């Protein structure tokens, strides 16, 4: 099928999505070919099938899926499109796997401007190309005005695991070190600063980034010494460590002074009454690492620009209550608990 089959090109500059673009007819095909294929351009999509076939090799694969409903769609440091690529790549990568392919499903509210959708699709394409990952299948639905907030995206990712690698939070042991790959809370603060009813000025940009290269580098150094990795998205670092504590049956002891938080993030959180430990990240990872490998893994993190501000922030301890405890800068102790309720809705 070619563009010749249509009467007129999509009016990207002035047009917007209407219900016909999800109806299965000519308009839908025009949207898919004229906008998404342009942005994602690869040989699998070019064949125009409802699915794509690809070769696999013997070994273990990983698969993950995630929905993106961030509001607003555009924020400092990215948009819902780049986020939908980075986020799913990171979920694949946290297993230590190399991401290969993505699917992308779009639920579009009628009235979304083509120019916005194109910008989002182009960022997805660019994020995927930069990461060396291909978006090889997708779907488009359009719903009536008021039934979706502009655009929701779901992406599914498939990746391949290096032989013998099996990371899992239940492998954490007493004495393991807790490493973070950089400053915490950047994404959440960048999003909040753009919310209509909160808007404040900050130079903080989202940390949204694909972490699989960083992961490959630290896995090459740390191997089986890396027990588990997580990307601390919703609920932030606090939620991630509580999950790992729960899975492993251990507690954690963190050092407040070692935890990297940018001054701008700290200031915004101060203003909004939030704790940076609970604010979402989209380009950071937490690694639980055997103590004898920790320094080498930390050095490998720091050698990658995405891990430049990495830090060793604490250790796993025996604790039947699975408390995550923080030693404050004054020498006191407090719990870093699960997030209760909804601190910041629709952050990713």
């Amino acid at each position: 099928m070619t563009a010749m089959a249509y009467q007129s090109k999509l009016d990207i500059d002035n047009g917007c999505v209407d219900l016909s673009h999800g109806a299965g007819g000519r308009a839908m095909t025009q949207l898919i070919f004229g906008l998404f294929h342009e942005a994602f351009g690869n040989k699998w999509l070019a064949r125009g099938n409802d699915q794509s076939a690809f070769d696999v090799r013997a070994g273990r694969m990983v698969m993950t899926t995630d929905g993106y409903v961030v509001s607003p769609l555009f924020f400092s440091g990215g948009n819902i499109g780049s986020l939908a690529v980075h986020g799913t790549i990171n979920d694949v990568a946290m297993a230590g796997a190399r991401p290969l392919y993505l699917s992308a499903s779009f639920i579009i509210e009628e009235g979304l401007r083509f120019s916005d959708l194109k910008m989002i699709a182009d960022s997805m394409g660019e994020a995927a190309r930069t990461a060396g990952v291909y978006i090889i299948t997708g779907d488009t639905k359009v719903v009536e005005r008021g039934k979706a907030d502009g655009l929701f995206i779901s992406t599914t990712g498939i990746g391949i695991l290096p032989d013998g690698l099996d990371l899992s939070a239940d492998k954490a042991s007493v004495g393991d070190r807790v490493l973070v790959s950089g400053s915490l809370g950047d994404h959440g603060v960048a999003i909040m600063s753009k919310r209509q009813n909160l808007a404040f000025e900050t130079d903080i940009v989202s940390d949204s980034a694909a972490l699989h290269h960083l992961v490959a580098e630290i896995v090459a150094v740390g191997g089986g010494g890396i027990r588990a990795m997580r990307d601390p998205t919703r609920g932030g670092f606090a939620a991630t460590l509580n999950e790992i504590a729960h899975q492993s049956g251990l507690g954690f002891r963190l050092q407040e002074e070692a935890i990297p938080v940018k001054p701008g993030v700290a200031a915004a959180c101060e203003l909004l009454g939030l704790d940076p430990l609970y604010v979402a990240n989209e380009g950071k990872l937490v690694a639980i690492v055997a103590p004898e490998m920790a320094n080498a893994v930390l050095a490998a993190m720091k050698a990658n620009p995405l891990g430049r501000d990495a830090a060793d922030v604490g250790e796993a301890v025996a604790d039947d209550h699975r408390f995550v405890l923080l030693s404050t800068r004054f020498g006191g102790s407090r719990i870093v608990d699960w997030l209760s309720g909804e601190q910041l809705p629709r952050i990713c």
Partner: protein
Amino acid sequence: MKYADEFRDKTIAQGLARAIGAEASPQRLYRFMEFCGGHTHAISRYALEDMLPVNVRMVHGPGCPVCVLPASRIDMGIKLADRPEVTLCVYGDLMRVPGAQGQSLLRAKTRGTDIRMIYSTLDAVRIAEQAKDREVVFFAIGFETTTPPTAVTLRLAEKKQLKNFSVFCNHVLTPSAILSILGGADIRNIGRVEIDGFVGPGHVSTIIGTEPYDFVAEEFGKPVVIAGFEPLDMLQAILMLVRQVNEGRYEVENQYSRAVTREGNSRAKKEVSDIFELRDQFEWRGLGLVPYSGLKLKLAYAQFDAEVRFAMHEVRVADNPGCECGAILRGVKKPVDCKLFGTICRPETPMGSCMVSAEGACAAHWTYGRFRDHH
């Protein structure tokens, strides 16, 4: 972070803690109530109690506006939101406060009433301007700190001649509550908990000044130190209280002099007194009906008074009988003394209001300090 890090300096904090340790007499107990929920939160978050000698104890007071709002007022809010023409604007931390029979504003929102979480009173005015066909009501709560913004909002609504905007007023007064605590049967007659001094409210005092606390010092012979909310503020205020107790003094002292004056903010006070007047009494969760402790809109502003506009009636609701919020808010019991604490009452499913807000004594202990009950 400028203007905050200076008040979180480790060396100075440890120096203050050493001074408290050196000056507090081991022969006696020092029991200080921090009235404010903001102080309770700071103490827990920075684990300041770990820095104090064992005989200097902090008693958490009722100064969390969300915590002291009784179930009856929540029920009134829900009833209001049930009216099809009403859009109810509330601060987020009010959403999970339990009303009667496990109801909350959050549940009411989930079943389809038009309740909006806002960050500023001005958001409510903006919503009223945009939705002229809706009756937009602002659910106003808080101590003296949040009353002036409500007053400014009412002035703005008046200026803009908004016909579809009103305020459900639940503003309360700090000095009346302190009086109630000091005069309460638990403390005076039973004498289970004695308070040797108060860490006085910081933000509230920026508005009302330090003068209104004179009666606490004079009538009850208790020292009061108005304090800021940073760790160094708290530690310094505690040291000042220890010194007053040691020297047998009971004065109102101002640690938070960078923000609080003796007179307070006269312009804010005038705005408030122009628009609001005292209620004969107001119900507080934990304290019951406290005379002259709440504000309502003056008659001249009746058109903006949701209670008048929608003929709202208060129906008193009994709290969960197992809930000890009342005794906890008065400093008579600790969170762990409540059998609901940590069992069925947790931040996700609060039974009592002390578990709802981050400033509540139970939520603060659960979130930051409960490991001490186990270790």
